[in-house]
């Protein structure tokens, strides 16, 4: 049933050392199309390091990151030429940062933010770009009359939704998210979670999401990896890991959260 040719992303023996300190170590996993993989762990557990290594932003000390490209099939990401890798990162991949300020251009309008990726891949028709930007604002529930406003005039939740629209406009297949609901208050979080889940379903996205919030992980992810001190101590189906945790650290983590 698990046909290897369908694997979208394959991580093997990934290790990142900061001198003698471990960022992450011996990480192996596969991601299939349409899957949402959560990575949980406390601050400093190495989950952001891992995400950066996987998303080609931080070259690991050892190991392979292979991605099933649309045209050439499985390719090792760190063996690609830099132009090829950067093209991949701004077309078939997307990265949603915890802080919208890291993922948006705050000094240009919402429309230009969404349109940038289209222009980067050669779209040169202003009317078409603007139309796409408007459609995408609609999909992330931002009124179209905000199209020409600067992101700095948006609320935190709107900025985060704008960042998502900006990332998804090129139709990526794989989205990386680093604590996407991190800085938002609870009611805004719920709206964003709902939006993310419907986008994932409607667009058939594959997602790797780093979060310290187990409730977010439960609602969004199909699979979960638990990290401690740079290592994956447990992984499996999200509900299994959270309902029947096997590792001491996971049990501690699960028993530490407030019941909702």
């Amino acid at each position: 049933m698990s046909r290897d040719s369908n694997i979208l992303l394959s991580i093997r023996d990934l290790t990142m050392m900061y001198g003698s300190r471990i960022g992450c170590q011996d990480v192996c996993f596969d991601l299939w199309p349409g899957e949402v993989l959560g990575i949980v762990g406390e601050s400093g557990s190495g989950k952001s390091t891992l995400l950066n290594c996987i998303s080609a932003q931080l070259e690991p000390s050892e190991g392979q990151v292979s991605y099933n490209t649309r045209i050439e099939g499985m390719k090792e990401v760190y063996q690609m030429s830099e132009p090829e890798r950067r093209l991949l990162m701004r077309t078939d991949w997307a990265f949603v940062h915890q802080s919208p300020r890291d993922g948006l251009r705050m000094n240009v309008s919402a429309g230009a933010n969404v349109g940038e990726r289209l222009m980067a891949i050669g779209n040169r028709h202003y009317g078409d770009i603007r139309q796409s930007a408007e459609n995408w604002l609609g999909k992330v529930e931002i009124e179209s009359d905000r199209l020409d406003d600067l992101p700095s005039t948006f609320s935190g939740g709107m900025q985060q939704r704008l960042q998502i629209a900006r990332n998804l406009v090129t139709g990526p297949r794989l989205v990386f998210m680093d604590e996407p609901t991190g800085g938002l208050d609870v009611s805004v979080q719920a709206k964003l979670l709902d939006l993310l889940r419907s986008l994932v379903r409607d667009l058939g996205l594959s997602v790797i999401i780093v979060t310290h919030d187990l409730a977010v992980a439960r609602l969004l992810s199909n699979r979960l990896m638990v990290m401690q001190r740079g290592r994956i101590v447990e992984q499996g189906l999200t509900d299994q890991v959270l309902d029947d945790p096997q590792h001491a650290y996971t049990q501690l983590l699960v028993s530490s959260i407030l019941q909702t």
Partner: protein
Amino acid sequence: MNYQQTEIPDYNFAYLDEQTKRMIRRALLKAVAIPGYQVPFAGREMPMPYGWGTGGVQVTAAVIGPEDTLKVIDQGSDDTTNAVSIRKFFARTAGVETTEKTADADIIQTRHRIPEHPLREDQILVYQVPIPEPLRFLEPRETETRKMHALEEYGLMHVKLYEDIARHGHIATTYAYPALINDRYMMDPSPIPKFDNPKMDMMPALQLFGAGREKRIYALPPYTKVKSLDFEDHPFVIQSWEDVCGLCGAKDTFLDEVILDDQGNRMFVCSDSDHCNERQAKGHRGPQNRDDSLTEEVAL
């Protein structure tokens, strides 16, 4: 110059020492070889403040010879403070001839304009450049802009144009209008009006650009393709005026608006004063220059 056998002058020819000129010429050669690419160079302190054309002056100093005739313009005019002081600088340090006539010049150093008179293959146009990096507006990191140039990632340039149209309904960038050189490098043409961009395209003269503060040199060899950026549905257009030049009646030049008094009277005149004078000498007259009497017109 063989200065060991002659009387030691107050300055080396054209102020800079010969080794510095050689260093700049090497940078120029590389710049000519890779049109539009910004070559770093070890810019020297010049006896004038940054922003007054130190980059252009160093380039001119590196390429000028004793037999050359120099013209310096600022906003198209030969007689502004900046133009006058640079012209005097070379007259004094290099003893070269200077001229206000475009056609008579071998080297033309310019700030903000390209002369209206078409340039020839035996002429060099030297631009003074404040900010050489066209991508700087949206990307402050030099490491990142260099990578973008290397990988031809120029989508960001269109973000700026998009923003213009979104805010003003048209591309409102009117000067320092970005252009793609030889289908490869994105270039800031210095703050010339976009009116002048088409003149750069396939120009017979050599065009050299010097940025003193940022210590960058770039160049357009003769007959280089210069394509101003645009959108398919918002094509590049140059400025146009409903008025003609009040003095020479020209319809096809870049016009400056001149306020005549505090009653709201104004006139438009060619920004290129040499071109305008030349036309007037040939008998062309504009609406505010009938009967050879500008003052009377103004008095009305």
